[in-house]
């Protein structure tokens, strides 16, 4: 039987070759992708990770629109050099509400997974407007329009509803709201309520004053609010390092 199974059969029958190729490729895909959905510890069970607030979410959209991910990753790998430079390695749990995730695979600029809180809002505004004014060797483009373009938040509810269909727990009903109160606490649950999204967005932009100008809400407000929350949700001082080891 085995003697008759010659490679020649594959080489001389295009239909068999096609089926054989598809089987070989799907094995590769199944082995690499399927386990991530099946293995129960892929996403770590850690406290603190919450969906983005409406303002942060709009900031994230601008991040994607401007293509920040083309040069900046958001994935600190568990290597010593990366930990020394960027901070604690990224957890799968930290991007569980990201659709699509911004892990990236290209670093022309530094990783941004833990940039939140590392610089002041002022610095971000200055740096996004004119990067070389603070980092002379930078090759990052200038983004001066962020400061002058008013943020369009008219459709923020729709954006939240779209994410809700992917499983992000933005709430549309009292029942879902109560679930969020239990999961994230009252203050966060209020921010995740779609019916108050615009109101919450305006309130956060005004109290945070991310772009240094309280008179209007610019795209800069949203982007800086987003950057300032990156990597800050999980309090690693409360987690034993070996517990994270055991998730893998």
């Amino acid at each position, binding site marked *: 039987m085995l003697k008759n199974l010659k490679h*020649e059969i594959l080489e001389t029958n295009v239909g068999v070759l096609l089926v054989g190729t598809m089987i070989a490729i799907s094995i590769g895909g199944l*082995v690499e992708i*399927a*386990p991530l959905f*099946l*293995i*129960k510890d892929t996403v770590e069970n850690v406290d603190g990770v919450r969906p983005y607030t409406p303002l942060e979410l709009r900031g994230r959209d601008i991040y994607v629109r401007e293509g920040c991910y083309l040069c900046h990753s958001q994935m600190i*790998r*568990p*290597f*010593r050099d990366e*930990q*020394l*430079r960027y*901070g604690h*390695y990224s957890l799968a749990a930290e991007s569980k509400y990201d659709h699509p995730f911004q892990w990236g695979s290209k670093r022309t600029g530094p990783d941004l997974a833990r940039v939140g*809180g*590392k*610089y*002041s*809002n*002022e*610095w971000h505004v*200055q*740096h996004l407007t004119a990067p070389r*004014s*603070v*980092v*002379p060797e930078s090759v990052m483009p200038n983004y001066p329009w962020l400061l002058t373009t008013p943020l369009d938040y008219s459709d923020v509810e729709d954006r939240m509803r779209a994410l809700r269909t992917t499983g992000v727990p933005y709430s549309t009903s009292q029942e879902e709201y109560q679930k969020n109160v239990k999961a994230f606490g009252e203050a966060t649950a209020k921010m995740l309520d779609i019916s108050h999204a615009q109101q919450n967005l305006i309130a956060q932009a005004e109290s945070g004053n991310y772009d*240094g100008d309280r008179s209007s809400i610019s795209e800069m407000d949203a982007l800086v609010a987003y950057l300032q929350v990156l990597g800050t949700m999980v309090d690693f*001082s409360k987690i*034993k*390092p*070996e517990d*994270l*080891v*055991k*998730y*893998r």
Partner: protein
Amino acid sequence: MADNVQNNQGPQTTGHVWDGTLQEYNNPLPVWWTYAFYATIVFAIAYWLYYPSWPIGQHFLTGFGKIEYTNAEGQKEDWHWNTRAKLLKETEDAVALQKPYYDKIMSLPFQQISKDPQLYSFVQSAGKPLFADNCAACHQSGGSGKIGMAPNLADDSWIYGGTYDKIQETITNGRHGYMPPFAEALEPEQIDDLANYVLSLSGNKVDPAKAAKGDELFHSNTAACFYCHGANAKGRQDIGSANLTDKIWLWADVPDAQDTAGKVALVTQVIKGGLNRGVMPTWQGRLSPEQIKLLTVYVHEFGGGQ
């Protein structure tokens, strides 16, 4: 293929004939290559057995490889090989290597650290990347600072104090510069007088009459500038108010202004609008107390330390 024919090794073809005449040569892979290929298969099996590999239902084959590390309770424990365990182990090893230095840094008073040549070179080599990663974005390389962003750390002028303790406090807790706006509280002429006076303090040529009026206003309860900047206008480091008598400017780029009017305009802007900036983030949590102490010495050694 042509070689095959020239060497007259006979017709090594696959045996198929297409169209009556077309034949295909058969060139088997070299033996060494075939065995190397089999060897990679054997290697792969060994690899699967040592490292985490095949998924099995909700779990996976963890492999025989183990990594031993010290847990949070200080006890040795091991876990199957994975990159997180490996990082934990490598971090422990590196920390152990640096421990003698950091122990010494933590036990010695600041003044002693830079006097010990070995410790001094450790501070310099470990401080350089720490400063570059965390501080240089605002304070620039070498701590030269930037007008409108962050103060120079290499000069003798300190906003919050240049002693070791103060530098450590600043790095640990961060800072937030604040000056109230005076646009509502004062008349435009009064602000103009004050700007002239403030500029006169650092030797700028201004309108002496206006400066005299500004002097009076500065020390009066109407403007009350002296509350924060002091009667001698030298600033107070406990609240981070600027010394107005030196030629160092952080927020109003006076040295860059073309003429007196330009200088007055810059200072007027600050008095009118106040300041709510100069925010330095807190580094507690991001850096360890050991790293902060080392960085304190590193920054102090830029030359401005007091």
